[in-house]
């Protein structure tokens, strides 16, 4: 499968469109900060009821690379993406995206920032009453005044990039899980964002679909010169494309570094997670009273 040609075309088109100032964003939103950190999270605290999902989380996500955020199920990886996107509000701490404090922005400015973010949801989140073509065209129709012929060209190019140009007339209900995610990816890049957040992109995929998604994420990141945040617990696939990775657990970063550093980590927790060991710092057994006591009902 040759992905690089359509991706290069998209990259050229994206540059042309940015220059053409099609989105009419205010200048302060178009100026990138000189900082190499795209997303800066400091002292993040987020509670669900009485339970702290994050408690003093600090993460830097560098510009231009693929950053993986890994951890076992239930550690709040998806919640972290929603916090970065401003869909949830933290109890304490700050999240800066491209130099802007996400939770201090007005609604209008937050929406302008979101136009420069793409997000691939775990379920795809395609609009079920629209065809594949209309789903990818949706953000373009909502936020630009492009002509129909230009929208058609852009949509077909985006779909070509994910290998689904031939499926443009299908409805979401006619797509497999892997195809739905690729369409959602085409939609996420429709506005040529500066970053894309991937929420568990490999979950439930067959080996071929998984391979396609792995390749797409990496090539798209490099060809369109964007930044990618991949949240996943599929260690091998994620580390194979990540430039940087963080492992989180218990509301904090357990370890961070390059993919290689994590693979050869000496930390017991990271080693258990990366190598998939059944027992270790994360015990096999859920906390419970003594087995004998439980079986005899406390009679002994």
């Amino acid at each position: 499968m040759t992905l690089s040609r359509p991706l290069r075309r998209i990259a050229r088109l994206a540059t042309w469109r940015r220059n053409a100032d099609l989105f009419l964003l205010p200048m302060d939103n178009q100026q990138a900060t000189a900082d190499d950190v795209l997303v800066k999270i400091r002292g993040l605290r987020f509670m669900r009821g009485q339970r702290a999902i994050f408690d003093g989380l600090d993460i830097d996500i560098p510009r231009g690379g693929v950053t993986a955020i890994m951890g076992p199920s239930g550690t709040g990886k998806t919640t972290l993406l929603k916090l970065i996107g401003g869909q949830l509000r933290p109890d304490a701490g700050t999240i800066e995206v491209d130099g802007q404090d996400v939770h201090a922005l007005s609604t209008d400015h937050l929406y302008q920032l979101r136009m420069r973010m793409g997000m691939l949801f775990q379920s795809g989140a395609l609009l079920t009453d629209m065809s594949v073509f209309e789903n990818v065209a949706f953000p373009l129709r909502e936020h630009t005044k492009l002509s129909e012929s230009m929208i058609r060209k852009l949509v077909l190019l985006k779909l070509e990039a994910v290998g689904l140009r031939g499926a443009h007339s299908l409805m979401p209900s006619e797509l497999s899980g892997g195809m739905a995610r690729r369409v959602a990816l085409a939609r996420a890049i429709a506005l040529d964002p500066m970053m894309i957040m991937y929420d568990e992109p490999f979950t439930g995929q067959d080996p071929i679909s998984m391979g396609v998604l792995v390749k797409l994420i990496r090539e798209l990141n490099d060809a369109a010169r964007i930044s990618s945040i991949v949240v996943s617990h599929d260690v091998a696939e994620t580390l194979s494309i990540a430039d940087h990775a963080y492992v989180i657990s218990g509301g904090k970063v357990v370890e961070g570094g390059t993919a290689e550093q994590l693979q050869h980590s000496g930390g017991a927790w990271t080693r258990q997670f990366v190598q998939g060991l059944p027992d270790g710092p994360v015990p096999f057994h859920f906390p419970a009273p003594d087995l004998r006591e439980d079986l005899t009902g406390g009679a002994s």
Partner: protein
Amino acid sequence: MRLFADLGAWVLNALHRLGRAHLLLLSMLRGFVDMLYRPRLLLDQLFSVGVLTILIVTVAGLFVGMVLGLQGYYILSRFGGETALGLMVAASLVRELGPVLTALLFAGRAGSALTAEIGLMKATEQLSGLEMMAVNPQYRVLAPRFLAGLISVPLLAAIFSVLGVAGGWVVGGGMLGVDEAAFWNGMQDGIDFEDDVINGVIKSLVFGLVCTWIAIFQGYDCVPTSEGVSRATTRTVVHSSLAVLGLDFVLTALMFGE
């Protein structure tokens, strides 16, 4: 002590939900402005919320009118007052049964569908997806549905009343032999445009607002699971029905009381 704590928590939760529902209402009202530029969104919803409800309203209106004609004839004929059948059927329909039954049918057909649709959009992350695409779902998805409900219910109530009068005439005039001129003249003389028709329209507007608001809020605020959507759909029908019946009493007392 525990009882008081639970009661307090329940009251706080109810007030919280009420606050969220009012904020949603304000947001949807602001979203009406968007529809001036994109009437297509409203037209699509007028079809799915309004046009698709016409059949059930038509059939129900016809049968309710026929039953009114039959019952009215049996009662009025005891006093030799069959000629007032037209007035009785029309007044019952325009003042009460048209707006109330239409709103109940609307809550059951369109209201439950709205809740289920919005709830499923939430459960499948479509609403979150819109937010992340910098599209406000309250303007793009909810406001057109709300306005469509607001417009549809008075029109559906009018269809219900017209078909009901036709049903009453079929039974009274066609089957039981009530004089045609007396039937229609009695109706024309007895029905006041302002007191009866306008008040009926006001009632159906209020019911349309309440039923659509409840349906949309329940879908938007539901727990995003299959069980949560199912519970929200049930709540829509129950709350809408009770709200319509309760409001009908209040409105009737205000409009027709001395």
